[in-house]
Structures are given as C-alpha cells and as structure tokens.
C-alpha cells in the first residue's frame, strides 16, 4: 500500500494532507506561541498552559449551550482566560518566582493538575461536543489543485495568520508590546524606565491564556471536548516551541506547522508508522535538530559584546 501511494503520486491527496496538517499544526502553533510569550517574560515553561486553554473551551461550551453565538462565546472565553491567567500570575507565581528556579515549575505542575480536576468538578466527566465556528457541511469546501479544502480546516490556518498579524502589531507598534519586549529582556531596566513590571507580566500571562483558549476552542469541535483534550496538543506544542526556539514567536509558528504537516504526512504516506508512532517520530526529528542547533531553529544565539 505504501508502494502504491509512492508510485501513483496523487497531487490532490497531497494537497489535502498538507492542509489537514496545517490545520492541526496551527493549533500546535497557537499553543506554542502562548508558551513562548510566557517563557520570554519568566524563563519558565508553563505546564498549565494547555489546561488554561481547555478551561476556556469549557466556558465556550457553557456559553454556546445557553445561546451565545460561537464567535462571541470564544471572544468572551478568551477574556475569561486572560483574567484567570493574569490572576494566577499575580497571586500564585509572583510571590514565589524569585525563590529558586524550581518553584515555578512545581507550581505550574500543581496548576496543571488542579485546573484539570476543576474541569471535571465543574463540567462533569462526560465529553461534550463544541460547535465549529466555520461551516461544517459536506459541501463547505473549495477546490485547490483538484483537492477538496474544507473550510473547517483551512479556516483554522487562516485564523492563525490573522492572530500572527495582530501579535506583530501589538509587539512592534504599541507601547504595551514595547514594554513586554523590554520586560522580557531586562526586568530591572524596564522598572528604571518607568514600566510597571508586574502589570506587564500579568498582561503577558493573560495574553498567552487568551491564545490558548482560542487554540482549545478550535480543536474541540473535531476532537471532542473532554478533560484529556489538551494532553497531546500540549506535548506537541512544547516540542514545536523547542524546535523553533523557546524565545522565538516565529520559531513557535514554524515549529507548530512543521509538526502538524509532518504528522499528517507520516500518517498518510508511511502507514506502518502511523497512529501511535507519529509522536515518537516527530520527537526523534526534533532531537536531531536540537543536536545541531541547541537554541532551536530560530532561537537567539545571544552573541553579546561587553
């Protein structure tokens, strides 16, 4: 079967798999972006990032069930996630972050477990379905090189591009964005230039959470909304962020999309590796990249003159 697919190369199938990979990769990329936003300001990998996003997806579910339109629900849930994460930064992370490097990691693992249990407590153990924000009908597709491209997949990729544009504007053309970059670079100097470092960190955590909520809410319609939804995507996103370079937003996106497409191609073209082995193969590839470039593909190498 593998031989057959190799010999009779099917162009439209290739494009279809590519788009499917880009759609899932966009979810990884969004999650990886939120990891990078927090990492740049605190130097920590936030293990609870996926769960914060999932919390938002459950909020979306509650809102849509009570009649709020899907788009509106997601925006509200993103705001809820923003406030939740900003509060977590202020109340839990900030008092402990200067004690020693391990404390934040332990706190984040605690948050991961705590929020995960909270989902079951509030919303019960049963999986829910979440409506897609894109048209999901059988003929909601357009043709590209003969391949049927479904809006519910392609739309996710488009949303990633919109998100990137907004983030670029935020970081490069607003005062808040300048302050976030400054605080990520040197907190002490940021304070000396009049920036309220604590507020900037809260905004960073909030922003990361809002992006995670978007990722979870886009993933849930196809994968089903349950307490275990984000385990796999979070691992993939961590791998994507590591691959791209933990301090590089561009790296997070390239890493996420690469991982998504890789996964789709492995499942499609190397069936004997498909299914459970996909993640392992991806990790091996990442390991090889990191052996050659320890900072990740786009991570800064920090050459500095003193």
């Amino acid at each position, binding site marked *: 079967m593998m031989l057959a697919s190799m010999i009779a190369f099917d162009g439209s199938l290739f494009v279809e798999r590519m788009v499917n990979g880009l759609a899932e990769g966009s979810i990884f990329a969004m999650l990886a972006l939120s990891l990078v936003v927090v990492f740049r300001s605190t130097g920590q990998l936030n293990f609870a990032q996926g769960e914060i996003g999932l919390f938002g997806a459950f909020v979306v579910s509650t809102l849509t069930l009570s009649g709020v339109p899907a788009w509106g629900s997601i925006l509200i849930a993103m705001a809820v996630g923003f406030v939740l994460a900003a509060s977590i930064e202020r109340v839990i992370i900030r008092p402990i972050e200067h004690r020693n490097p391990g404390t934040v990691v332990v706190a984040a693992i605690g948050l991961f477990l705590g929020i995960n249990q909270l989902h079951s407590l509030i919303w019960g153990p049963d999986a829910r379905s979440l409506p897609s924000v894109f048209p999901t009908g059988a003929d909601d597709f357009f043709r590209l090189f003969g391949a049927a491209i479904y809006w519910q997949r392609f739309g996710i990729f488009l949303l990633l591009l919109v998100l990137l544009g907004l983030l670029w504007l935020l970081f490069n053309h607003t005062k808040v964005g300048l302050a976030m970059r400054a605080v990520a670079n040197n907190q002490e100097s940021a*304070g*000396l*230039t*009049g920036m309220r470092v604590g507020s900037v960190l809260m905004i960073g955590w909030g922003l990361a959470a809002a992006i995670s909520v978007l990722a979870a809410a886009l993933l849930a319609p196809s994968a089903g909304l349950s307490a275990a939804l984000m385990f796999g995507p979070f691992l993939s996103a961590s791998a994507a962020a590591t691959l791209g370079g933990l301090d590089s937003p561009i790296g997070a996106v390239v890493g996420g999309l690469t991982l998504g497409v890789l996964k789709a191609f492995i499942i499609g073209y190397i069936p004997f590796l498909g299914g459970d082995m996909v993640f392992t193969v991806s990790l091996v590839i990442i390991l090889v990249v990191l052996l050659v470039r320890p900072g990740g593909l786009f991570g800064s190498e920090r050459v500095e*003159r*003193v």
Partner: protein
Amino acid sequence: MSALLSVEGLKAGYGPIEVLHGFDFTVNDGEIVVILGANGAGKTTTMRALSGMIPHRGTITMAGAALPSRSDAVLRAGVAQVPQGRGTFTDLTVEDNLLCGAYTRKSEVDEDIERWFDVFPRLRERREQRAGSLSGGEQQMLAIARAMMSRPKLLLCDEPSLGLAPLITQELFRVLEDACRSDGLSLLIVEQNANLALALADRAYVLETGTIVAQGTGAELLADDTIKQAYLGVG
C-alpha cells in the same frame, strides 16, 4: 539654591548584611554632585536604594515630597538612573531602547530621539542594530540617552567610566555637563575615577565602607592630600 534631593540617615543592604550605615547628603537644583568611593564602599548600593531597586531605611525627599519606593514610581517622580553595567535592553534595537526611555512620555518623543542622535551620532548610525551588538562605549552612550529620554529632573549615574577608555569617559562627562547646564538637570554621579569626576563636580562626598567621611567642593577635594593618596594614587 534649594535642595532637590535630600537624603537623611540612609541605610540599606542585602538580606542581613547592612552596607550603608546611615548617612546624609543633598543634591541642589542644577548641581553636579559626585560621590567618590573605592570598590565596596557602597556606591552602587546607594544608587540602587535611591531608585527603589533594593529596600532602604531613612528619609529620601525629592523636590519636597517623599521619593516613592518602587523603581517605576521613582522614575515618574523625575529621577532616572544609568545603572552600573549600562543595563541596556540588549535584544532591542537602539531606537527601541530610546523609545523605552520615553515610556512615560507622550509628546515630542521623536524630537528627543533626534536630539540624542545629534549628541551621539554613532547611535544614529546603529539605530536599527541590537543594543547587545554595540561596543561598551556605545552602550554607555545609549544608557545615558535612554535615561535622558524621560526628561528627568535628576540623573543618577553609576560609575559611567567603568570599563571605558579615558577619552570616551571625557566625552561622556562633557555631554552630561552640557545637559546639566542647558536643561537645568541635576546630576548625581558615583565614581572611583576621582580625577575626572572631581573636575566636573560642584560638590563631592567621599564614601568609605558605607559612611560619608569627607565632603567639600570638587576643587577642595582635588587639593586634599588624603584624598589624593587614596583615590588619585599620588603622594
């Protein structure tokens, strides 16, 4: 002249270790004051205490009001600092560093950037470069320009000569003096480079192991034999 900054009984340190043992000093409007001290005398600790980077005891009054204790609020009260080791945002471009300096301001930011590019043309040439790629002298220029972008009433400089060639130090001191005379800025410099600093100073204090042991005009201290021996390596 009235005191712009007035410090009384300043004590500060790190954890249980007290570095500053309670001393007084003032900086008047438009005045250049130098605190001279050897390594470990408490110069940087003094600067960090003033800018709220470490907690302190004692009274610090700025223009008649208590100086706030958080560094962002200290800046908003008109006190900017050029920290030891420059403290530039190494990942940001030269221009973004200057924009950060103007973070608390809204108008005439572009004009001020041009002004400091005129003062330090080398920064203009490197405006799109990452600050981390600049030389030590250029980084010190950037640090001074960034602090000045907030249009402070008082500028604190922590050992601006550290690690710089004497010619560059001289150039920087000349720029600082010009800014002082033209903008009515007050300047507090801590230094161990006595020669250059005392020549610049209206008044100076000598700090030894956390206490002020001598004070006078720059000229008086330059002529003082014990100062000469301790800080100028003559006599």
